């Protein structure tokens, strides 16, 4: 039941080539849609029926997002793909760009047709030079084969697609910061509302979706929304890519149905490294609160199960930590990240992330004070929900998760000025 959607071509030799993609029926869905002039509403309904939720982290229903666009509004509309992939622990979109770029292109053209857009951009993080070149080559192939450009399949529908390269900024994964960045500015998130569906790229109606969300579209339409939904479980339709890394034997990206037990995913990844025991898991990228290993072993990998346990599925980035890790050190590194990556626009985030880092750092280096844990608790409350974008929450949640499940380790550190482990 693995590799049904975004990775369904992984058994092919050089699967990124157009001829390989076409050998498996690639671009046939697009051709059918355009030749039949399929009503756009039908496409959006099918995506809604699939239960696809945004794979970038927030899990917003994709079909619903598309239906917010007023197709008949005058002027340009845009489809933007978010391949910024910056959430620590996440490395799945890179594999889509490298191994299945045409499915992403086909998904973006279909999305464009569905919302009445004639142009799209794929925002690829600047460090992903090799995946960018792979994607560019696929764009060239698609253009020469007539799958991108004007009057596609004689339908009168035009669609141009370009990639935009970032230059190193986690915040540009946030959708409105990403739009600012394409517009040639610093990546500072915009106030919402207005949402991108009304006021997006260049002020025009825009949908923005994660790479994996868009690459899933051709398969969803080919096999039907009901089929996709049936792969997963209640509230979590479909299969999903999980990037699993940490103290495990065979880290990698696995496409499995949502609702698969975590223990099975861990097994697919070879289990824990020789002689190491599972201590904790970050189930959805570094912004997701950490959970104890024994809690994780009883959970299934779907939105509801992970949320009920007090964390989130996020981007599907699973970081597995063994018992040799000091949780204070892990949190110190994560807090440093958010401090480093805050765009500086909102005071609670700009100042708060620095405070979080400095306080965790002083605990880690043996200078912690007994009142520091309450101070951390208090700061997270004063950051979360008080900023323009969710980076503030992303910085606060790991701290809250750590203090909830591993408070004793922090207390030990403060009292004894050294680690409980190692």
């Amino acid at each position, binding site marked *: 039941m693995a590799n049904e959607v975004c990775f369904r071509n992984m058994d092919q030799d050089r699967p990124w080539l157009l001829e390989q993609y076409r050998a498996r029926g690639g671009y046939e869905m697009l051709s059918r849609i355009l030749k039949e002039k399929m009503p756009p509403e039908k496409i959006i309904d099918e995506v809604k029926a699939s239960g696809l939720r945004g794979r970038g982290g927030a899990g917003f229903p994709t079909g619903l997002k598309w239906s917010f666009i007023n197709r008949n509004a005058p002027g340009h509309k845009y489809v933007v793909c978010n391949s910024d992939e910056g959430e620590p622990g996440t490395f799945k979109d890179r594999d889509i760009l490298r191994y299945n770029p045409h499915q992403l292109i086909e998904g973006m053209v279909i999305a464009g047709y569905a919302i009445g857009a004639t142009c799209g951009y794929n925002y690829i993080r600047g460090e992903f030079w090799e995946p960018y070149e792979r994607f560019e080559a696929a764009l060239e192939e698609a253009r020469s084969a007539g799958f991108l450009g004007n009057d596609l399949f004689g339908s009168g529908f035009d669609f141009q697609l370009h990639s935009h390269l970032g230059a190193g900024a986690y915040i540009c994964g946030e959708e409105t910061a990403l739009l600012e960045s394409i517009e040639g500015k610093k990546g*500072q998130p915009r106030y919402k509302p207005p949402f991108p569906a009304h006021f997006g790229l260049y002020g025009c109606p825009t949908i923005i979706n994660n790479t994996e969300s868009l690459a899933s579209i051709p398969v969803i339409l080919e096999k039907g929304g009901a089929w996709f939904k049936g792969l997963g479980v209640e509230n979590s339709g479909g299969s999903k890519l999980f990037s699993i890394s940490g103290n495990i034997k065979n880290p990698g990206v696995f496409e499995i149905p949502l609702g698969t037990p975590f223990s099975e995913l861990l097994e697919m990844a070879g289990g824990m490294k020789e002689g190491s025991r599972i201590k904790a898991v970050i189930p959805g990228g570094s912004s997701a609160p950490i959970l104890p290993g024994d809690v994780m072993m009883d959970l299934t990998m779907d939105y509801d199960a992970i949320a009920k346990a007090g964390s989130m599925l996020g981007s599907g980035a699973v970081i597995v930590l063994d018992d040799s890790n000091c949780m204070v050190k*892990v949190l110190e590194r994560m807090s440093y990240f958010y401090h480093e990556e805050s765009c500086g626009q909102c005071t609670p985030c700009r100042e708060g992330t620095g405070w979080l880092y400095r306080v965790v750092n002083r605990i880690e280096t043996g200078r912690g004070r007994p009142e520091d844990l309450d101070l951390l608790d208090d700061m997270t409350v004063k950051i979360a929900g008080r900023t323009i974008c969710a980076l503030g929450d992303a910085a606060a949640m790991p701290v809250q998760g750590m203090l909830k499940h591993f408070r004793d380790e922090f207390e030990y550190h403060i009292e004894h000025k050294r680690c409980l482990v190692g």
Partner: protein
Amino acid sequence: MGFKNIPMSTVKPSENKQALFNAKIRAEIDKWIAKYPPEWRQSAVMGALMIVQREHGGSLTPELMDNVAAYLDMAPIAVYEVGSFYSMYEHKPVGRHKICVCTNVSCMINGADQIVEYLEQKLNARLGGTSADGKYTLKEVECLGACGGAPMFQIGEKYYENLTPELIDSILDGLEE
């Protein structure tokens, strides 16, 4: 950010753009410009800075950013803002090879600290510094989206994963002088 959205290019279009960069750089920047609506030349600023940095030894200067501003009809300050916001733009000279080591969580728990230590000793340079022969710059970076290959680093355009001291030796031996 309000409801208005216009390019920041309020300056008079600059003349004699050919004088700003050589033909190769101009052709590359023009490819980026062509991707965006004509009134949004400034969307090409990130691509342009990247190209100009690469073609000038790996770092930017105020003069180079001024030229990018003139080429794209942008206010210089708007280019400085972009140039200083994104971490891949350098504003101090760098070595011929920039080694960007990821130290984020997945890499850290797989030995990134030892990788950094090994590099610092081998190159006799600290994180953020450049080796005495000007060949290498060592830089700490955040998660590069390759945690499955932790520990890892990037040199130039390429990722190197599952690093060990032996592997690092052979990678560095294989680089151009």
